[in-house]
Structures are given as C-alpha cells and as structure tokens.
C-alpha cells in the first residue's frame, strides 16, 4: 500500500544509538589515523607505491563515493529539468547525501595529497595548468561543494534558525531565504553545470594514462560513461538511503517516488550498457571481454551486476516489493561502483611488476571517512527536517511553512 511522501520531518529518534556511536568511533579513529599520516608520511599508513600511486582514498572516497553523492544532482535534474514535481519531498534527502558524499570525499582527498600546504596556490589562476584534467576536477569539485551544495542544503538549516525563538536569528533566516528565492535558478543551474563538468572529468583523467589502462576500459567515451554512471549511482544511493530510512524509522512506503526512481535508474543503466558495448565494438575490443582472464572477469562481473538488476527492475512487481528493490539496487550500485573504481586501479597496468592492496590503516581510514558521511547524515536527519514522510506519520496536520517552497 503506497503512502505519499509530502513533508520533510525531523526524526525524533535519539541520536546516540549503538550504530551511531560505532560509526562516530570509527570516524574519530580515522581522523586520528589521518593525524598519524600527517606526521609520518603516506608510505607508512598506506600500501601505495610508485606503480600504483592512487589507491583507496582517491579511487573509493573520491571517485566512487562522489558518484554515490551525485544523488542531489540526479534527482534535481529530474525535478527541475524534466519537471517531475513528485521528487520535491525527497530533494532534501538527496542533496544531503550529495553533501556528505562530496564532503567526506574532499576530506579523504585532503589526507591523500602529499604536499597539502601548496594547495594555497589554487586561488591564484596564474599557476593553473589549464590543460590539466585533474585541475578541472579539483577546482570544480571545490566550487561545487562551497557554492552549490551548501546552497542546496541551506533550507532545513534556515528553517530551524527561523523557529529558534530568537527574533534576530529568525529575521536573518528569513532574509537569507528571500535572497535564495530570488536567485534560485542561478544557483541550481550552477549545481547542474559544475557536477557535469567534474564527473565527466573524473573519467577523462585516465586518458593521460593511455595504454596503461586496459583496453576494455580505456575509451575516448570515458567522460560520457563516468557522467552517466554518476546519474545512475546517484539514483541508486538515494534509493538505498530512502529504503533504509523507511525501514529503520518507519517513514512510510511511497511506491510512486521510489518506483519512479528505480525505473529511471533502470533505463539509464540499460542505455549505459548499450553504449558501453557499442563502444567496445567500435574500438574493436569486443572479444577482449570474453577471454576470461582477470580483466575480462572483472568486466563481465560489473556488466552482470548492472545488467541483471536493471532488467529485473523493469518489472513493476519487483519494484513494488521493498526488499527486492533494495537488493537489486544494491547489486546495481556495486556494479556501478566497480566500474567507477576499476580504471584507476584494477585495470591500471603500470610498467614493471607492481602489486597493490591497501594496507590495514588505509582501509580503516577509508572506512572511517565513509563512516563520517554516515555520521553527519544521521546527525542531520535527527536535528533538521530532511527525511520525507507521509502525512499519516505526522499525527497532527501542520500548516504549510514558508520554507516549504524549497
């Protein structure tokens, strides 16, 4: 039985649950390990070497996690470009996942670079190498987080400020809110252009490695594939988060929104797969996918992990069952993440016999940064009105607040 999500609510559950404490502990531990990294050097805390200079932090926390964090972008595109108004109730959740995904990605990046004190030069465009794809990624991501994501995540915060009881705060909140309302299109357009640029650039990064990336992945269409996968994983992340939130906090099961998300995600994935195979054929490497060596197996695994769930989610029946929806979306997400992760790591073949596997500290740090994202998410949904809920969950009818426009 579907219940329509209409309002964003603040969860009244206690914050310091066991899982929250565990995540907080893990995140805190990762920060301590990060401190260790700063005083000792990357070689001591990671398994990185000269052949595999990019490891878990860049490949998982930045490349993969920001793809998951493209939910705000993907859902906003659906709502604002394709005019699917039904997505407005989940907009706050989606942009929050984006904020925490990108935010912790930037934290990991901060720990990963070897000479962070020279970051200051980034404010001086004269030092920029405008041919460098990595520069584009860095500048664009930073601009996105500082400008667009913060803007998009302000409403729940402003709302709380407005109701805080202090007239000055309330006044200020209202002022900022009116400013946001009057300049809304400019910010949102920015929130679309910037991630298109850097999500595709994350793909272009590997052009420079040329033949050091296995031909199954190295393609001139890498930016397109990465961008499309960002949309797909964005939808997947929002779906998973909403399904889990619904399950844990009993928010009500809105089949229309979730089903729609799943359908769009499914079609996009099928489109992605078609484009991928056409690209393989066009480049003449189709046979490489079936040699069943280690690379072919990874490729087939990610293809199957994408193909099976996307086909399954074409079925309205399967979409209507939360457990199947969750399982297939999870599998699809794993496939997509595997695709984003692979070109810089598994499919990267430096000269010489290099092997790389993250060290224990590296794994714990990466996990801790991911846990940080979860912690911030949990904190936010319990302090601000973010998660969607059906009216039946809100016992009393509430008047529409002025902030409901966002």
């Amino acid at each position, binding site marked *: 039985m579907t219940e329509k999500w209409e309002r*964003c609510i603040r969860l*009244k559950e206690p914050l310091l649950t066991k899982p929250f404490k565990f995540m907080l502990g893990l995140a805190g531990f990762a920060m301590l390990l990060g401190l260790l990294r700063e005083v000792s050097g990357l070689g001591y805390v990671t398994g990185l070497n000269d052949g595999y200079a990019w490891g878990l932090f860049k490949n998982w926390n930045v490349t993969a996690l920001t793809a998951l964090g493209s939910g705000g972008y993907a859902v906003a595109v659906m709502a604002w470009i394709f005019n699917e108004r039904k997505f407005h109730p989940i907009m706050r959740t989606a942009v929050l996942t984006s904020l925490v995904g990108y935010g912790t990605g930037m934290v990991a990046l901060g720990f990963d670079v070897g000479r962070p004190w020279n970051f200051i030069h980034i404010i001086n465009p004269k030092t920029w190498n405008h041919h460098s794809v990595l520069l584009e990624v860095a500048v664009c991501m930073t601009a996105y987080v500082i400008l667009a994501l913060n803007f998009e995540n302000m409403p729940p915060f402003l709302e709380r400020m407005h*109701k805080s009881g202090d007239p000055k705060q309330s006044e200020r909140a209202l002022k900022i809110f009116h400013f946001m309302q009057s300049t809304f299109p400019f910010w949102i357009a920015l929130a679309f252009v910037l991630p298109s640029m850097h999500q595709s650039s994350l793909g272009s990064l590997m052009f420079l490695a040329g033949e050091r990336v296995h031909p199954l992945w190295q393609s001139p269409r890498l930016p397109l594939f990465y961008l499309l996968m960002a949309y797909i994983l964005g939808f997947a992340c929002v779906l998973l988060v909403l399904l889990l939130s619904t399950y844990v906090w009993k928010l009500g099961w809105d089949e229309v929104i979730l089903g729609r998300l799943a359908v769009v995600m499914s079609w996009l994935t099928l489109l992605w797969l078609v484009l991928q195979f056409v690209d393989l054929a066009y480049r003449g490497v189709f046979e490489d996918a079936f040699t069943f060596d280690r690379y072919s197996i990874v490729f087939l695994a990610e293809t199957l992990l994408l193909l099976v769930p996307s086909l399954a989610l074409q079925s309205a029946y399967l979409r209507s069952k939360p457990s199947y929806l969750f*399982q297939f979306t999870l599998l699809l997400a794993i496939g997509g993440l595997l695709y984003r992760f692979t070109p810089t790591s598994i499919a990267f073949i430096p*000269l010489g016999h290099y092997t790389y596997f993250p060290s*224990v500290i590296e794994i714990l740090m990466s996990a801790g940064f991911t846990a940080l994202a979860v912690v911030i998410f949990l904190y936010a949904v319990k302090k601000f009105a973010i998660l969607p809920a059906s009216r039946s969950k809100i016992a*009393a009818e509430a008047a529409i607040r002025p902030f409901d426009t966002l």
Partner: protein
Amino acid sequence: MRDDMSPAVPPTVRPGLDRRMFLKVVAQATAAVGMTSAMAAKVVAAVEKGARPSVIWLHFQECTGCTESLLRTSHPGLAEVLFDLISLDYHETLMAAAGHQAEEALESAIKKNAGKYILVVEGAVPTKENGIYMQIAQKTGIDMLKHAASSAGAVVAIGSCASWGGVPSADPNPTGASGINKILEGKMVVTLPGCPANPYILLGTLLQFVALGKLPELDELGRPRFAYGRTIHEHCPRRAHFDAGRFAEEFGDEGHRLGYCLYKLGCKGPSTHASCSVLQFCEVVDAWPIGLGHPCFGCTEQAVAFRVPMLKPAEIVRPTPPSTYAPVAAPQGFISPLATAVGGLIGGALLGAGWMASRGMKEKPGTTPPTPPPNQNPDSSDKE
C-alpha cells in the same frame, strides 16, 4: 770515478756512489711513491744543488713501529735515504749519541736549520696533568714538541699515534694521549696515519718536498691525498669478491681459504682511508693484513681503530652497485594478508547487513511509529 769537472754526483753524497747508482736510487724512490720521471729529474737537480733537507725526528708515546717500518724499505733502502737524499740530524733510535750529547745535537740542529728543517714526529703526546706522563730530561712532551715545531719548516706526524693519538689514546685514554696537531693548534701538520704508517708515504712526502719545495695536496685532516684519497675498499684486490657477494664467513672456512672478501669478518676497509692495498709492506706481495687473510682493522682512522670491535661490520663510505643487475621489471609492492582479511570482513559485513535489512523491508512497516505521541499543537510537528 769521474773527474771533478762534471758534477756527476753531488758532493754531499757519500763517496763510492757513482752517478748511475745515484740516478737509480732516485728513480726507485720516486717510482715507489708514484712520482713521474719528470719529478725524478727535479729530485736529482735539487740534490745536485746540495739541497738535502734537514730532518729532525722526535719520538713520544710510541712503539717505534714506524721507524722499524722505515728500516725495512729497500727501494730505496734507509741507507740511501739517510746518506743521499736527506740529512737526518736527530733520531733517537738510529743515532749513536746519547745523554747530554744527544740533547746538544738536537738543539744545535734546530738552531742551525731554523725555518728549514722538516720535523717528523712519531708517537702521541700525553696531555693529562700538563703532560707529566712523558718526560725526557724533565722536559714534558708538550714542551719539547712546541719548541721543536716553533722553528720547523714543515711538521710531519708519522703514524696514527702522532696523527690522532693512536693506541695510547684508546679508551679510557688515561694519559690524555693526543695527536700532535691538537697541540700545535694553528700550525699546518702533515699527518701520515697508519699503524705502522707505510714508509713509502713518508718517502713520497719528503721527496716531493725536496723536489718541488712544497708539500703534496692534503685533505681536511692533513693527510696526503696521493696516499689517503681512497678507502681500502675502493682499491682492494678482493673487491670483485665483495661485489659478487662471495664472503668468508669464519676464519679457516672454504671462503676464507679461497681468498674471498673479509667484510663479514669485520674488515674495516670500507671506512678506512689508506694505501695498503696498493703499497703493501716489506716489499713482499700480499704482505698486508687482508693479503694475509686478516680483516683490516682501520688503523689509520681515529673513529675506527681501537674503537670499533674487530668483528663488527664496517660502515661503507660511498657504496657502489654490486655485480648483480636490476632486472628490467623487478616485482614491487606487497599485499598484506591482514589487510585482505580486514577488507573482506568490512565488505562482507556491509553486504550481510544490507541483506538482513532488505529481508525486513515490507510495504507495511508497522502502524505504530516509534515516535512519542505528538501533542495537539499543530505547529509542533517539525519544531524541536
């Protein structure tokens, strides 16, 4: 004998020596220390002019090994050196005089050749308690040294004792034995460390002084570069064994008998600057420690000799590649089994949790929300 018209043999040279023999002596002497024949000609010219430099040789805290070592030269022999090349005006071991006669000989030599004589010092000088631990005729070593050095043309410290303290200065150094350069602060001292010093180094230094009127190029410790510019390791006959990784592991084992490198038996060649590997001793091939199968103990180096234990491996100054080569693609990187376990655990835990969660997801998650019953104020639902 030739007639006196041609200066065939310098008049100061001993009688009975013909020009041919004289030239041979000079050639041997200069060749032994690596001087060119052009240099030899200069030596001849200098000696012909009557320039046989005066040498005053002092002994302090020493075993006389350096003198003994000098006695065992034959190219040239000490006799040729003493009679044809230098004028040895004071030497306690070799001179006939004794007692007050000897003291007078020293004083008159110093006065007569003031500013021109070469002062050779053998032995360390004790400095504790104002140097009372070495006195001759109630004069301390420090005073004797300073007095003799004050009007010397050049000061040469022969042997490790005079160069930096040598064996008397080994811990705990009860007499405060010190090299003479520490006592003659400010004066340029040529140091020729070694225990004993190789006599040809002294000969080479003296001959250069005779021929060119100046001392050879010295390093920062005052050691002539022609003899102390390289470590033993850099010119060792057993170096090929080191580079190929062939070592004697114990005295008398197979490797030792085959003449393999002695690094693992504590050879200090890699940190010892000396010329023993080239010059050897007593003009017998392989008459030097390593040649005889015993590791070098670093007798020229203050930081090594009598300080570092015999069997402790030496610090290699300026290492170079071994005889093996890096392959075109050497394996790099390490996969920690613990890390794979941790990674697998985390991944598995997440998947498992996800699976468990998904099993519990239903369309109707339950009618009673876990939140407390709301109050009747319609404004309260999304307030604090």
